[in-house]
């Protein structure tokens, strides 16, 4: 049975999309059948990391939510469209699909104005899990705790909460952890991203873990190298030996039950 892995953060800017993309690619590289859903319909972004633009996107999650196509129509094969970027081309032939949200301004304002039925989203995810026979479905959520996010948390087998080591994230994450427990999420991991390199990462992991009584699956450094990579390509595939990549690989192994 496949697993739903939701990646969540209390605020924007934590590196959530980047983390989701890298985790999902690590799972695909390991030979799993992997889907990635961008449920951050209000501010989609993960498609950029997979080299998609508006022209190459085809159907979007927005159309599925309006009942205009099936979710399977939206699933875009990364394995068949991996391109030539140094990281992404390693995904050639992998069983990996992206379900993108529209980046068209009109589509985004429409969804913000009209909203959508979270249950339809849920049905779509269940459907695609089955039809593509996915081992893992990664959900890139909208930051904060809105209805869609609550739903994605509720249906998760694994919830990853990403936080930066700063006061607002630390406070907001506490509530998210409480919610996850109330919703009986089977497995909860915290990932600390953008940690200043002068911190003792082992100590950060221990203190954050103790503060929430939850497992910290990784502490990832704040790094300029990542910024240089831009928002294109998959950093952990481009620079696998980098400290950040090693950290994300460790998190991916925990998700896959290897770490």
């Amino acid at each position, binding site marked *: 049975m496949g697993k739903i892995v939701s990646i969540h953060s209390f605020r924007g800017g934590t590196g959530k999309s980047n983390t989701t993309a890298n985790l999902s690619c690590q799972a695909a590289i390991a030979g799993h059948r992997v889907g990635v859903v961008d449920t951050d319909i209000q501010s989609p972004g993960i498609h950029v990391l997979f080299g998609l633009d508006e022209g190459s996107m085809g159907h979007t999650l927005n159309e599925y939510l309006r009942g205009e196509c099936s979710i399977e129509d939206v699933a875009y094969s990364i394995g068949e469209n991996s391109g030539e970027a140094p990281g992404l081309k390693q995904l050639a032939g992998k069983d990996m699909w992206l379900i993108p949200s529209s980046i068209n301004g009109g589509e985004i304002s429409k969804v913000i104005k009209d909203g959508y039925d979270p249950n339809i989203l849920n049905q779509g995810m269940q459907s695609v899990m*089955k039809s593509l026979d996915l081992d893992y479905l990664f959900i890139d959520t909208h930051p904060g705790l809105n209805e869609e996010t609550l739903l994605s948390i509720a249906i998760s087998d694994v919830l990853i909460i990403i936080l930066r080591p700063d006061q607002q994230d630390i*406070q907001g994450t506490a509530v998210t952890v409480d919610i996850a427990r109330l919703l009986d999420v089977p497995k909860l991991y915290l990932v600390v991203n953008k940690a200043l390199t002068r911190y003792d990462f082992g100590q950060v992991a221990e*203190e954050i873990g103790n503060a929430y009584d939850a497992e910290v699956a990784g502490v990832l450094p704040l790094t300029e190298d990542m910024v240089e990579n831009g928002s294109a390509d998959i950093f952990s595939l481009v620079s696998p030996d980098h400290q950040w990549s090693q950290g994300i690989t460790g998190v991916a192994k925990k998700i896959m039950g290897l770490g």
Partner: protein
Amino acid sequence: MDSEKKKKALSRSSWFRELPEEVLDGLVDRVDAHVLQKGDVLIRKNDLGDSVFMIYSGWVKIVVGDVRGEEVVLNHLGPGEFVGEISLIDQRPRSASVIALSPLEALELKRDDFIKILNKHPEIALYVIINISERMRFSSTYVEKAIQWSQRVADGDYGSASDEIQKTQDATIVDTGKPDDVRANRFLSSFFRMVEGVKAREEKLMSQLHQLTIEIDQVKRDEELDSLVSSEFFQKIKADTQSLKVGRRRGDD
């Protein structure tokens, strides 16, 4: 101190050594001898002063206080040197304190007597000016060095400052035979011993920065959780959670 000794002292001082012997004989009666022990104060800063002192034997330090009242050494002076010449000339309070670094013998000449002899032998003025010029030149070097040290500290270069302090830790008297910049460095090193305090404070701050403080406001946490949990949508999701998951498992079979 007998007259012979006084005359000898005057005859080898930079101001008076060119004076004819009979003039020196007359001057001997005008000067008062002072004998001090190590640590005694010859001149106290801000006192009114109308005289100049000439060191016959022993050494003095010229000092001012820093903002915390601690001593900052401006100079060391020894035999044949004059101290207190600034107030002698400008008639304003003493600009620094002068303290004996060793047993000291000094001669004091009052302003009135100095003016009288200056009127008769105006060439003395040139020697006084040369002497004051040397002091000014040294002051410039001192200020320049102080700025250099401050810049090093400001740049966080505590290492070289500490090295310098280490080198001069046991320095006692810094005699006037050494170049001005070497002497200025020696005096400043004692002042810049404060660098060690700055360094320690910075290290303490850095270690605090290295520690991440995790503070969760539990009241706020509970309030936010309550408002979320009491929402209709949450209640529905909570109720549906089981069936959502069960439904998926069933669908997967």
